[in-house]
């Protein structure tokens, strides 16, 4: 375990291989929920919670269930079930604590289950921190940390996008592109600019 590895994970997940802008995972909620900052941050918090906890639990499942019994081909299905359960949990909590937020999220809350970012980080962890089925030293901490960092990367992209869209709310944007078309175009330009991080080598 080294600080350098943690630092690398942090910088990669948040900036260089940003889950939304470079890996293009989690786009549905990115385009749909990023209109205002408060809900965008709330969604990011929910996603971060799910990515972290599912990184942890899927690590255990992979390490102690799938690998020893040679069941790694069941990875996708088992990971998804874990994530689905967690999202159900988060949904129950939000429903109790803030019904307005629950109604606002609408369909996009249960859709965190199928948010490619969440499954993506779980799969990424098992690819990066296991070699031939054996866990590298510190694998658990790296996986958990990467879960947190992917959530942070998601939050960063949401923060930038919601700032932009809120600013554009005050502007006289042509009606033909208002809301979604412009959101896609902005996402396109943002991901073009993140191309600058391609080919990174420390």
């Amino acid at each position, binding site marked *: 375990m080294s600080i350098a590895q943690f630092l690398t994970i942090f910088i990669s997940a948040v900036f260089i291989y940003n889950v939304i802008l470079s890996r293009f995972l989690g*786009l549905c909620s990115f385009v749909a929920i990023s209109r205002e900052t408060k809900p965008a941050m709330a969604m990011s918090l929910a996603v971060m919670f799910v990515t972290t906890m599912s990184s942890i639990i899927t690590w255990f499942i992979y390490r102690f269930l799938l690998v020893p019994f040679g069941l790694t081909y069941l990875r996708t299905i088992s990971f998804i079930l874990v994530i689905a359960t967690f999202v159900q949990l988060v949904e129950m909590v939000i429903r109790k604590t803030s019904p307005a937020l629950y109604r606002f999220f609408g369909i996009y809350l249960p859709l965190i289950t199928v948010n490619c970012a969440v499954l993506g980080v779980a799969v990424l962890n098992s690819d990066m921190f296991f070699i031939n089925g054996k866990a590298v030293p510190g694998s658990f901490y790296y996986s958990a940390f990467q879960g947190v960092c992917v959530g942070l990367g998601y939050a960063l992209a949401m923060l930038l996008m919601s700032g932009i869209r809120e600013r554009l709310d005050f502007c006289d944007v042509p009606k033909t592109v208002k809301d979604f078309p412009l959101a896609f175009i902005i996402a396109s330009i943002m991901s*073009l600019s993140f191309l600058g991080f391609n080919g990174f080598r420390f």
Partner: protein
Amino acid sequence: MKKYFSEFLKGIIKENPTFVLVLGLCPTLAVSTSVTNGVGMGIAATFVLLGSNMIVAMIKNIVPDRIRIPCFIVVIATFVTIAEMTMKAYSPALDRALGIYVPLIVVNCIVLGRAEAYAQKQTVLNSLFDGLGMGVGFTLALILISAIREALGTGKILGFTLAHKFEPAFVLGMPSGALLVIGLLLGFFNVLKGKRE
């Protein structure tokens, strides 16, 4: 009968999953690089949508609300596995082209989205037509997007080279290009709808 037909139609235009509901973007961005891939994915997704919508509508009263999402996932995953195995058997080239995005239909927002928003509240027949309509709408959207991306991004379409001197814009093969195409298409549809200033 008319009612079912309108359920079907709504998935194609009024509530098109890609352009109106804004769902299922990840596979759309990844797979719409060529028309053949787009069609293949569309057909596979339609099959899964049909199956999962129907089954969810059938079991909606038995499934406890608290664990409904994991249950739906199991249903969806089953159909995806069937689709995947069929594809591997009857068109392995397509399977190789689509790669991991076939099993990733499990996480295609459209499928779970329709199960959650529609199939668990409607009758089996309605859900069937809804699933069919959404699937066709998704496929049509994929065809449109991939036609543009393939023609302008590689200079060829379905194997035919378009114009020999034409230098294709590589950006269209990348996800940013896809986002751009979708954004511009959406704007164009708005113009058609008469949303001018």
